[in-house]
Structures are given as structure tokens and as C-alpha cells.
């Protein structure tokens, strides 16, 4: 093993703990799904009810640990970029193995999914008989393989990094010259990129005006990738004030006053509630209108923050990059 850095060890250890808990929750969920009987007064049912609390607590623990751990993970990649020749930030380290990119995507997806699960759980707890119990635990059974896949990719990634192979830095990774999906988006004409970005935001606003949860969920679901890609393609260059520096990671560094953390926090907050509101409405949760508003606020703050950079740049210099 070539990368025995303390940070990697810490991440792997926490992965181990999370895996233990997630598996425990999986086994208990399996039993709940198979044996749950709302009307029964048997000791088994009673035990299952108690175990349902354990599962929910464990999932909450996983989610609330995964949130900051995600940031620590990026930080770790940033550190590793110091020992990988060629890498300047986490982007280079991510592409050091073929698993890096899928790992990242899965990590983000899992954050949303665990969060949505918790939201559904909260709503369900609001009913006297917890009518969604079986569905909820069934959903977790489906979520678990994704979690395992994430952990597996993470192991493959960390153990697969070869510190002697030169990797690319973000400058070349996200440049228009490269032939990857990301680069394809970067090289899209600007009106298309920005049109879809602001268009989807407009759709989300409209969904709020018309109080339409499904529309909000769809708009926000699409908004996540479009926001990230347009950040890479357009907005990030204005944060760096360099026309060819396209990178979603350098934003997180001290040089740019850690503004990336704020951006991603807004984006997550807004899109998460934007999707959760559909679930809330479907489950008959009365507070869904509030969630729709949360989503609007989060989305708006994100859009305002990223738009600030090009506008400020233009006002200051009188030209676009």
C-alpha cells in the first residue's frame, strides 16, 4: 500500500464503522420488511417496533456523519494531490483511477438518498401508526447496495492510486480540448449552458409560485447536474478570474476564501428540499409548503452567489472573460 496517509486511514476507519452500522440496519430492515404486521400485538411485532428505532437512528447517524465526512474526503483528496505528480487539487486525485469519478457521483447521490430517507421517516413518525414503515424499510434495502457500492469504489480508488503515475490537473481535465462528458459540456455554446441553468431555476421558481411539488422535484433533480456543470464551464472561471481555469474543487481552497463550501451548501439545501417536497406531498405531510419555500431560498442563494462573480467582474472590468 503506497498511500498510508493518516487522512486516508481515518476515512477508511470511518467507512468501516459506517459499514458495520449500515449492515446492521440492513439485516434489521430485512426482518422488518418480512415480518412487520401493524395490527399484531405479538412480542415479535413489539421487538420489531423497537428495532425500527435502532435502524432509523443508525441511518440518521450515517447521514449526519456522511455530510461532514464528504468534505473531509475532498480535503483528503486535496492533500493527496501533494504527493501525486501532476495533480494540483482534488480533481487530479479523483481521476487517478477509473473509480474516482463514479465514486464522486455515487457519494453525492447517496447523500441525497439518505437525506430523503430521513425526511420520509420524519413524516412517517408523524402518524400514529407509522403507515409507511414497510415501504420505508424496503426503500432502505434498496439503498444499502448503493452504499456498499460507494464503499467498494472508495476502497478500490484509494488502493488503486499509483503515486508514480502522473495524473492530470484540473486545468486539462475540464478543458474544452479533452473528450470527456464534462468537457463536452464545457465546450457547449454559452447561451445553451446558461440558458438551461437559469431556465431550470426559473422552472423551480414557477413550481413554487404554482405550488407544484412534482414540478419542483423534477426541476431540482435536473438542476443539480446542470448547476455543477455550469459551475465548471462558466461560473468557476469568474471566481478564479482565469478564462481557462475550470474546476469545481479549487473553489474549496483557502485561496478563494472557501467560497465553494458555501456554494455547495446552498445548492444541496435548495435542491434537497426541492426534491423532498414531492415526497412530503405524496405522504400527506402538511408542512410541504414550507419545504418548497426552503428549496426556493436555497436555490436562490446559490444562483445569486454564483451569478455575483461574473456580474462583479463585468462591472469592475467592463468586459467578460
Amino acid at each position: 500500500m503506497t498511500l498510508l496517509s493518516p487522512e486516508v486511514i481515518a476515512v477508511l476507519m470511518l467507512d468501516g464503522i459506517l459499514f458495520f452500522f449500515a449492515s446492521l440496519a440492513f439485516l434489521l430492515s430485512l426482518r422488518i420488511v418480512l415480518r412487520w404486521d401493524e395490527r399484531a400485538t405479538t412480542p415479535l411485532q413489539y421487538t420489531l417496533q423497537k428495532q425500527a428505532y435502532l435502524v432509523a437512528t443508525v441511518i440518521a447517524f450515517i447521514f449526519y456523519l456522511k455530510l461532514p465526512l464528504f468534505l473531509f474526503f475532498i480535503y483528503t483528496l486535496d492533500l493527496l494531490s501533494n504527493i501525486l505528480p501532476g495533480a494540483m487539487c482534488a480533481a487530479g486525485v479523483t481521476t487517478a483511477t477509473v473509480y474516482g469519478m463514479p465514486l464522486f457521483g455515487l457519494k453525492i447521490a447517496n447523500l441525497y438518498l439518505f437525506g430523503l430517507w430521513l425526511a420520509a421517516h420524519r413524516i412517517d413518525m408523524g402518524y400514529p401508526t407509522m403507515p409507511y414503515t414497510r415501504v420505508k424499510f424496503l426503500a432502505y434495502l434498496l439503498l444499502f447496495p448503493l452504499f456498499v457500492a460507494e464503499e467498494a469504489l472508495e476502497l478500490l480508488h484509494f488502493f488503486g492510486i499509483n503515486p508514480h503515475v502522473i495524473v492530470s490537473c484540473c486545468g486539462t481535465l475540464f478543458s474544452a480540448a479533452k473528450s470527456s462528458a464534462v468537457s463536452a459540456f464545457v465546450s457547449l455554446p454559452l447561451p445553451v449552458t446558461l440558458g438551461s441553468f437559469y431556465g431550470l431555476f426559473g422552472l423551480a421558481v414557477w413550481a413554487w409560485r404554482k405550488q407544484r411539488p412534482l414540478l419542483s422535484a423534477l426541476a431540482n433533480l435536473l438542476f443539480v447536474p446542470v448547476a455543477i456543470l455550469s459551475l465548471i464551464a462558466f461560473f468557476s472561471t469568474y471566481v478564479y478570474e482565469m478564462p481557462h481555469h475550470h474546476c469545481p474543487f479549487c473553489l474549496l481552497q483557502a485561496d478563494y476564501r472557501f467560497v465553494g463550501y458555501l456554494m455547495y451548501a446552498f445548492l444541496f439545501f435548495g435542491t434537497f428540499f426541492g426534491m423532498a417536497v414531492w415526497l412530503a406531498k405524496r405522504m400527506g405531510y402538511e408542512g410541504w409548503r414550507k419545504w418548497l419555500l426552503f428549496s426556493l431560498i436555497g436555490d436562490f442563494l446559490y444562483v445569486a452567489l454564483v451569478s455575483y462573480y461574473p456580474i462583479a467582474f463585468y462591472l469592475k472590468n467592463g468586459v467578460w472573460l
Partner: protein
Amino acid sequence: MQKEGLNMVEVKGVSKVFNAGRPNEMTALEDVSFAVGEGELVILKGPSGSGKSTLLSLIAALQKPTRGEVVVANEPVSRFSEDFAALYRRRKIGFVFQKFNLIPSLSVYENIITPLLPEKLDEEALKERAQRVMETFAIAHKANEPARNLSGGEQQRTAIARALVNDPPIILADEPTANLDADLSHAFLSYVGQMKEEGKTVIIATHDPLFFDLAITDREIALRNGKMEGA
């Protein structure tokens, strides 16, 4: 002597079997049915082991019946999830336990406010509510005394104050005078009268003859071996 008006507590064909299917199977209650109207005082009597405590705990949704149903204010509380059962106890039930069950290391005030802590109340509201019941039951002067230093009578008054602090419509008391001398038992009786006057529904499980054939009692239910006598 069923009163007119809303049924506060309905016990419908309730049975409770412990350790079902095992050698130590024990039927604590068998097909018990009755209803208690709002504002009524019901005495639940019977010898030790007849199922009184079990019945109270079913009404309080601390346990679930094996068969049958408990309905309180038209809600099927015996089918509630644990969380809803807890919420129901917090909002609707004041419980006076047999051994008072105060937390010995907490002060009188802290004991009294424990039922309110999970609610979103500020310090002021907590103090105000506690003060009210502490004055009613003449225990305010001991507010900061740890419960372990209290005399029997003070413990009793603290326990009653705690049961009433969330202003519940239903009071359940399990052998409230079992550990008290005659004077204190009489004092308790007068508190019961006070509660009834306030319109509370009161159910007292006891085998203390002091409670038998009282004028203020609306109804007496006698249990023997888990069955209602004369049913």
C-alpha cells in the same frame, strides 16, 4: 351508573396474556369491558394480583392488549406507535404510581417538570406551571430539596403535582395510599375530590377500603383473577 355525555375512556373486550405460549403463560386480564365518562371518578378494586395495575398500564398505553382495544377520547390508543403512545401519555394522562417513583437525585421542582421537558417550553413557562401545582399541593417551600430527602407525605404531594403539571384530562393512580399512614391517606382523598371538581376523569386502582363506597365515586369496578366481577 353511566353518565350522559362523552365517553373518555373505553375499554373494549380487553385481554392481556403474558408469556403467551410458554409454560409460564399468565392471563392477567380476560375480556374486560367498561367505559368511563368525562369527569367521572372510578375506583378499580380487587385483591393483589387481580390485574389492576395491568389494566391501568393498558389505559396509559404503556403496554398493548393481547386482544381487544382501548379507546380514549375516541382515539384507539392501544394501536398507537410507541411515539404516539408517549405523546398521548404526556398530553392526556397524569399517572400517580404506587411507589411515587420520583427520581431521587432530582429536586422537587426538577421532578415536577420532567413531563414537560420534551415539549417546546421556555424556562418561564416551566416555572409558572410548576409553581401553580406546587402551591396547590403545598410543596413549593421544598422546591429545591432533592426528592430523596422528602418525607412520605411530601413525596406523595410531589408525585401528584407531577401528575397534574401538564394539566391532563385523565388521572390514573395505582395504589396511591399503599405506603401512607391514615392521615396522609385521608389527605389524598381530599386531593381526589379537588381533581374531580376540576372536571378530571380519575381512575384509582386500590385495595384500600378507604376508597370503597365513597359519595363522590361514580362507579366501582371489581376485578378478580383478571375478570370483572358481576359482568
